[in-house]
């Protein structure tokens, strides 16, 4: 069997499993549901193995970086050292595995807190930059609508005695972002649907063997 015919068979098999998975969502048969659950478990196991391989790849890339002097030497060295410390300490101290895990998560969560603060600062600077930029109509309208809806949703207008027709207009404007949100979500959902169908019915496969 040559490589292309083997790949074609694998593609057909993957497609059939995908179609079975789709149809099984509409079935109440216990046997079908069991098979579906089993497939999910297998997929999770494969995903776990792939994650393990990705981590090995990450470590190899850091060693390669140190050896070939590519990328930041400090970054590669620190990443590798921390990985080795956590790895060997975690394996040698099985009894205290939960304490190792909680320590790692504690360090990670403190770094993440700092990063969240930085994101806030960057976004404030980004808004300032958008305010100064006059080139993009989309960005300018985004900024003005952000300011407008912040004022609108703050309840500022509820303190004013507005005529009835103006209140109706404000109530109408209040629901506009919801319409925009639905529009975006419908667009994303249509794209996801078409992408799913392309993958499922053999149009598009992100692995070896597709497109001659």
């Amino acid at each position: 069997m040559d490589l292309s015919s083997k790949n074609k068979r694998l593609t057909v098999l993957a497609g059939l499993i995908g179609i079975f998975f789709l149809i099984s969502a509409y079935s109440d048969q216990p046997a079908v549901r069991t098979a579906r659950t089993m497939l999910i478990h297998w997929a999770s196991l494969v995903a776990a193995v792939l994650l393990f391989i990705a981590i090995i790849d990450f470590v190899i890339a850091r060693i390669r970086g140190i050896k070939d002097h590519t990328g930041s030497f400090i970054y590669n060295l620190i990443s590798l050292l921390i990985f080795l410390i956590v790895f060997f300490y975690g394996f040698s101290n099985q009894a205290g595995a939960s304490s190792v895990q909680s320590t790692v998560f504690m360090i990670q969560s403190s770094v993440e807190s700092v990063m969240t603060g930085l994101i806030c600062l960057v976004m404030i600077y980004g808004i300032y930059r958008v305010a100064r930029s006059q080139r993009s109509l989309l960005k300018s309208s985004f900024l003005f609508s952000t300011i407008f809806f912040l004022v609108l949703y703050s309840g500022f207008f509820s303190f004013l005695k507005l005529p009835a027709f103006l209140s109706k207009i404000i109530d109408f404007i209040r629901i506009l972002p919801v319409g925009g949100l639905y529009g975006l979500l419908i667009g994303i959902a249509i794209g996801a649907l078409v992408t799913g169908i392309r993958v499922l019915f053999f149009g598009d496969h992100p692995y070896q063997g597709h497109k001659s």
Partner: protein
Amino acid sequence: MNPSRFGLILIIATLLIYGLCLFLRNKIKLLPLYKNDSNSKKLQLSLSRSIEEGKPIHLDVLNRDESQLIAPSALVAINTSEQLANRFAASDEPPFVTNNSGSVHALTKDAVKMGYRQADLENEFSAASLDFAGFDSLSHQTTMLGLLEETPYAMHLNIGSGGPEIALQDMMFQNEEEIYIAGDSLLGQATGLATADDVFIGEQLYELPVITQPERKEAAPDVGLLVMDILRYGFIVALGIGALMILLV
């Protein structure tokens, strides 16, 4: 609980429309709407400039999280990585691809290899042009920023389910480095409008594999995008009829 029958009807209808478009593609002149987008033209221009100037580009493939095997937006990103690898295969600097998930890492590696193979330059593929960079959203951004610290890139294309943490790139990269964001996260899109050079909003995300294709491949319109256009107008008509019925009844 079973999903609604409407979902199944929608899937079958989409499949039929897809088949019809595939069949009629060469018989009727179908006009895709995506070709006139200003941001797609800007992205194509940036890609061409990167190749001419011999500057590397960076693609970040973002999967939603480990609980979802592969999100549709990540599939788009994987396809785009293949197109970019094909387009940059003969250039001085290969594209650098980062990702945040084990399964996406494996598929991206294959897709990039495929891109080189399509350009008959499979030997040019280097494992160093791909890196797995942490799977938690914030950890991924910090790991990735560390990886990219010393090399100035012409552009950074973020595709997938990136959230507000994408804003960190604006702080880390030089002003000359362009940042593009395309994803299915509403927060990520809103952040991108304030911090990125350009954002592919909503369904524009799904146009990226076609936009990033090498120019010689653009002869026939992409069937998937035509189907998206048809479905979009179908939804608009259906919503219009629904609104009229509410008004009249």
